[in-house]
């Protein structure tokens, strides 16, 4: 009976005029992929290639000056030694931001895993991650309200000590790092949390009942377990931070000169696109080197 119906369906299927010969799979696969990768080619890959070409030009090719191909833009670090100092400052800004995020974020992840359960933990995670998906510019702007002279922080201080002066740290490097830590901390909490949440409570209880002190548990269990999260968090924070320009501009003022702001200037003020392009590519080289170094750890995380 069943077989009969199946046979019927098959014969009906073969005479059905709607059934066409199926296209080969690669045709439909290509059709599905082409729009996305075509779009990315125009928006990302071709622009990067064009920028690479521009970085070897002697001048922005839009005036009357003849344009030659040259390596001079990449010599900028030697010709203008102040760029070296700015580059170093950017790396230090990345280092301090990453370090503070790592300490605060790791501890927050430990606290989440060890001190909260169920609904509370879920709510806390959402609350921690929520600001991360809001406008970074607005969050940086918020800090100017807190840090400026006679701002929120000063007012709190004057409530306690009315005669104290201003403790405004706006337009200092501290303010820049503070704003950056605020912006990127949720990343580190998330990556450490993902790494730590797999720890079996029994391991820690066993260690504790065998007489391990808290620092032993920290160094022998928690930090090694969180290491992949710490590393991928650090990579994901360090890279955007060394390329940041709006945070140093708004919170750093005149002291907030970084690779990011120098590159921005080449495109918006100085109109020296080839120099901007070569600095961008130097930055990209640093980024790629970091990714290459840690690709094993990063891939392990996406697979697991």
């Amino acid at each position, binding site marked *: 009976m069943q077989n009969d119906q199946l046979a019927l369906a098959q014969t009906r299927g073969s005479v059905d005029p709607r059934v066409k010969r199926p296209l080969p799979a690669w045709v439909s696969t290509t059709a599905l992929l082409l729009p996305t990768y075509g*779009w990315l080619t125009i928006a990302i890959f071709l622009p990067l290639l064009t920028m690479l070409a521009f970085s070897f030009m002697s001048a922005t090719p839009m005036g009357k000056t003849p344009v030659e191909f040259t390596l001079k833009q990449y010599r900028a670090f030697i010709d203008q030694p102040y760029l070296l100092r700015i580059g170093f400052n950017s790396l230090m800004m990345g280092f301090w931001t990453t370090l503070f995020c790592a300490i605060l974020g790791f501890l927050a992840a430990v606290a989440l895993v060890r001190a909260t359960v169920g609904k509370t933990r879920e709510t806390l995670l959402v609350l921690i991650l929520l600001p991360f998906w809001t406008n970074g510019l607005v969050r940086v702007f918020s800090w100017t*309200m807190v840090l400026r002279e006679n701002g929120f922080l000063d007012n709190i201080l004057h409530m306690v000590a009315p005669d104290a002066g201003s403790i405004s740290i706006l337009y200092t490097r501290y303010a820049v790092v503070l704003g950056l830590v605020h912006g990127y901390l949720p990343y580190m909490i998330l990556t450490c949390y993902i790494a730590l949440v797999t720890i079996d409570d029994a391991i820690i209880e066993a260690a504790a009942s065998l007489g391990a002190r808290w620092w032993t548990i920290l160094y022998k269990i928690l930090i090694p377990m969180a290491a992949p999260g710490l590393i991928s968090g650090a990579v994901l924070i360090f890279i955007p931070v060394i390329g940041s320009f709006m945070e140093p501009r708004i919170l750093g003022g005149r002291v907030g000169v970084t690779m*990011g702001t120098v590159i921005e200037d080449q495109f918006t003020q100085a109109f020296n696109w080839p120099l901007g392009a070569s600095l961008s590519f130097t930055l990209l080289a640093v980024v790629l080197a970091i990714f290459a170094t840690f690709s094993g750890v990063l891939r392990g995380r996406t697979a697991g």
Partner: protein
Amino acid sequence: MRQLGRFYLIAILLFLYTPIVVMMAMGFNASPLYELPFTFSTRWYEALLSNQPLLKAGANSIIIALITAVIATTLGTMASVALSRRTFRGRSLLQILLLPPIAIPWLITGTAMLIFFYWSGIGRGMHALLIGHVALAIPYVVLVVGTGFKTVRADLEEAAMSLGSTPVHAFFSVTLPLLYPSILGAALFAFAVSLDQFVISYFLATPGYTTLPVQIYSAIRKGFTPEINAISTLLLLGSMAAILIFARFAKPGDTRDKR
């Protein structure tokens, strides 16, 4: 120890939210110079209503975010079908090629777009912003929809086809309805990515066509009033709402127990 942990988490939340709350409160303070004591006022929100450049930039932002969400979700879902359900040579390379828009600092991508769009004659303005925003949103869409695919069993579609359904019909009548929450989530995500995007917009906007974050940035640098707090508050609440709705639909990270 447990007590200390909770205390610490509260301190972290205070650190994360205090500046945001202060910024929002200052939008309701009457003083144009942010002077205290606090006097409640809605004058800055009223002033917004007649601030044409900000309103226009806000409308531009929303329109761009909507178009970006539609295009990126369509293209990204198509790519996700191929990347999740087909096996072919070069698949892992294609997956890696989704990373640059996310992983390369936007400053580099943005300046590269500026150079290329200028050089190729595409130019700047609304269409340029759209090209950029969609490219940034696509990888997230592929990721979110791809996660959704893991929860939809491939054999359902095969069952439909073995019962005489064409592949296209099987996809639209079986897989797509099951993927619906992920796709909607991806669209909301793309909307939020575009709404919050500043760096790329900054390089591709023209004086005549800007988005809200670009307008806010130039205001911050040139001098501003609490009107900027008011519009920033609205922008923050808008993207927070989009992300919370997204979290309800797509349940990111939760791939096992919904089937």
